[in-house]
């Protein structure tokens, strides 16, 4: 396993090329092309702002204004996470030709999926910056140093999960359909469109078991809430947890690796 893990580093050129290919291919043929990476989060934001400022007016505390910005801090990284998870479950089956016909390191496929979605996440960041400026919410530059750490933790966690799910889906195709609903449930079980403080006290301890909770709170603390990043202990703990998830995901993937060429 660790030998294979070391080989992963050698594939960085391949991963990079495939991420670029994914990005190029995704918007090929559409008129707006790359702009969709900006428009999609923007449109999503408009929808949520409309719902929470016009329809569900009293649903949040006054000090949470601007609520749209608060939600955006969570939705943007969540989109990265959820599309990575959903796409990666199918990535080995879709790339079956490569696995069956070419000598190809299969683990590259889910990793590329996560990375490509990460690049989309980065494309969405200028929109976020635009909103921060628009609402005149200064961000403490020192706190901003935490941002790459949060991204790195999320990346490790997501890749681990993507490896696990992509390998399992080869054998249990039902996962693909199940995942859509699971991710939806996960979305509402994570403080994204509601702040952690607003969650009922007896639910809060349960939410703490959700790794995404701490990632989202970290994003919100750094980007939205004033004051120091008080959640960093959780984040560091989650960082170690993510490494464990990654190793576990890679372990299962490596176990099932030999069966891919036959089962895909």
């Amino acid at each position, binding site marked *: 396993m660790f030998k294979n893990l070391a080989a992963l580093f050698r594939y960085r050129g391949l991963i990079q090329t495939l991420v670029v290919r994914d990005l190029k291919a995704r918007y090929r043929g559409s008129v707006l092309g790359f702009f969709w990476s900006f428009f999609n989060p923007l449109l999503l934001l408009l929808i949520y702002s409309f719902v929470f400022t016009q329809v569900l007016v009293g649903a949040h505390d006054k000090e949470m204004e601007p609520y749209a910005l608060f939600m955006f801090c969570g939705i943007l990284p969540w989109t990265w996470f959820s599309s990575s998870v959903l796409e990666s479950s199918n990535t080995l089956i879709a790339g079956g*030709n490569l696995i069956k016909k070419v000598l190809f390191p299969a683990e590259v496929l889910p990793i590329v999926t996560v990375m490509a979605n990460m690049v989309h996440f980065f494309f969405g960041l200028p929109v976020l910056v635009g909103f921060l400026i628009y609402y005149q919410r200064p961000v403490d530059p020192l706190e901003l140093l935490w941002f790459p750490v949060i991204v790195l933790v999320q990346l490790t966690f997501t890749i681990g999960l993507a490896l696990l799910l992509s390998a399992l889906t080869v054998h249990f195709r039902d996962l693909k359909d199940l995942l859509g609903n699971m991710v939806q449930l996960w979305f509402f079980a994570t403080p994204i469109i509601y702040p952690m403080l607003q969650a009922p006290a007896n639910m809060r301890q349960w939410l703490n078991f959700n790794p995404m909770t701490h990632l989202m709170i970290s994003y919100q603390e750094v980007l939205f809430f004033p004051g120091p990043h008080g959640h960093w202990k959780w984040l560091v703990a989650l960082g170690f947890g993510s490494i464990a998830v990654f190793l576990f995901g890679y372990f299962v993937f490596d176990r099932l690796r*030999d069966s891919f060429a036959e089962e895909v």
Partner: protein
Amino acid sequence: MTPAIAVVNVSKVYRRYQQKKQFATLKSAILSGTLIGDLKPDETFQALRGVSLSVPKGCTYGVIGRNGSGKSTLLKCVAGITRPTTGTVTVDGRISALIELGAGFHPEISGRENIFINGVMLGLTKKEIQYRFDEIVEFAEMQDFIDAPVKTYSSGMYMRLGFAVAVHVDPEVLLVDEVLAVGDQGFTHKCLDKFAEFRRRNKSILLVTHSLDLVEKFCDTAHWLDHGVSKGEGDPKRIVAAYIINVEDSEENELAKAEAARVAAAAKAVSTPDPVEGVEPKAESGESPAESGEGPAPAEPEGPKDGFKSDEGRWGTREIEITNVTISGPDGEAGHVFQSGDSIQVRMDVTSKDTITDFVFGLGLFNADNVCVYGTNTNLEEFRPTEINGVGSVTFTIDKLDLVEGTYRLDLAAHKADGYPYDYHRLLYTFRVKSRIRDVGIYRPDHSWSFSGGIKISSQ
């Protein structure tokens, strides 16, 4: 010197799972520990059984064998795509596998970008690809279309580009699985030239193919696999010859089996209802049995009723019965596969219970398209029957079987001069003609070529 490819005692077992296994849940997998342990198959299929081979550096090595003999599995094991169940495979140097061409192409992006991506997948760096780019494009003959998205390519263009990238990876070991049929003659020659160049540069090629000519002309060593077992290795000419004999034998067996089944079915269909006198198949009214090629009506009462095609069967009163038919080749042994130019004999054993004075023996030869190649009978050739009684045999000899390659079927009959059938065997006997010459048509006239003047030509 270490060999480029060393395959030692490799077996590969594919596992087949029952249908319900497909619906096994994640929960049950976790509970029964199959996720961490081993999945238990319901059935296994052994694709390779203890195959060993060694390809020295600079050697072109051909693997032949019938469908399902494990050739491609062997290639996948060597390529590292699947792992052998037991045994070891060691490969010295960079491998490029031409198993499926252009497998990594993305349809939406241009040929140019795909060359880079495919090259990276095959283990090149960007700089190396840049360096070889023009050569690849030129080799694939794609100069005009290189910037069009790959989805607009024809399948030929797609494969040519895939081939071009794969051979320009500059591998130490090239694995080729039946991919030479990707272009016109010119392109095929270019591929062969490329292979020859590999050879000169002391690279090794492992070639899996059904093209025996290619193996004979091109390979240094041939290896014959049959049902996952190695049947021989060595000089290509010798191995190919052994392989051809084996294929003919099994074709022979298949034809014999099919024929036995047909004759048995015809006999069974006939034995049930007693033939009704005076009701003849209308096609029988012709003089020659060959004329029945127009097709006897399925309505004949004695004819087979169930299941099989109207154009094949047996009918007649059996006053004279054809009890046995053998077709034999030049060695006198009964067979079903003959070489074009062989002499063959068709022998029918006949019995008649009473003395019969009006009888004709006939024979019709049909090709696979049901075209009558030849038909004759003893009446047409002006034999005058005197009498038949008891057991006898009729032998029809063709001195030189001048037929083109293909499968042929025989009508054999004993009937009255007016066509009234005693025993008519319609298309029940099959034999196959093999030929080294790939000529076409229904008949090969005795011929020769001669040249004079400014023509320089020689036979191979």
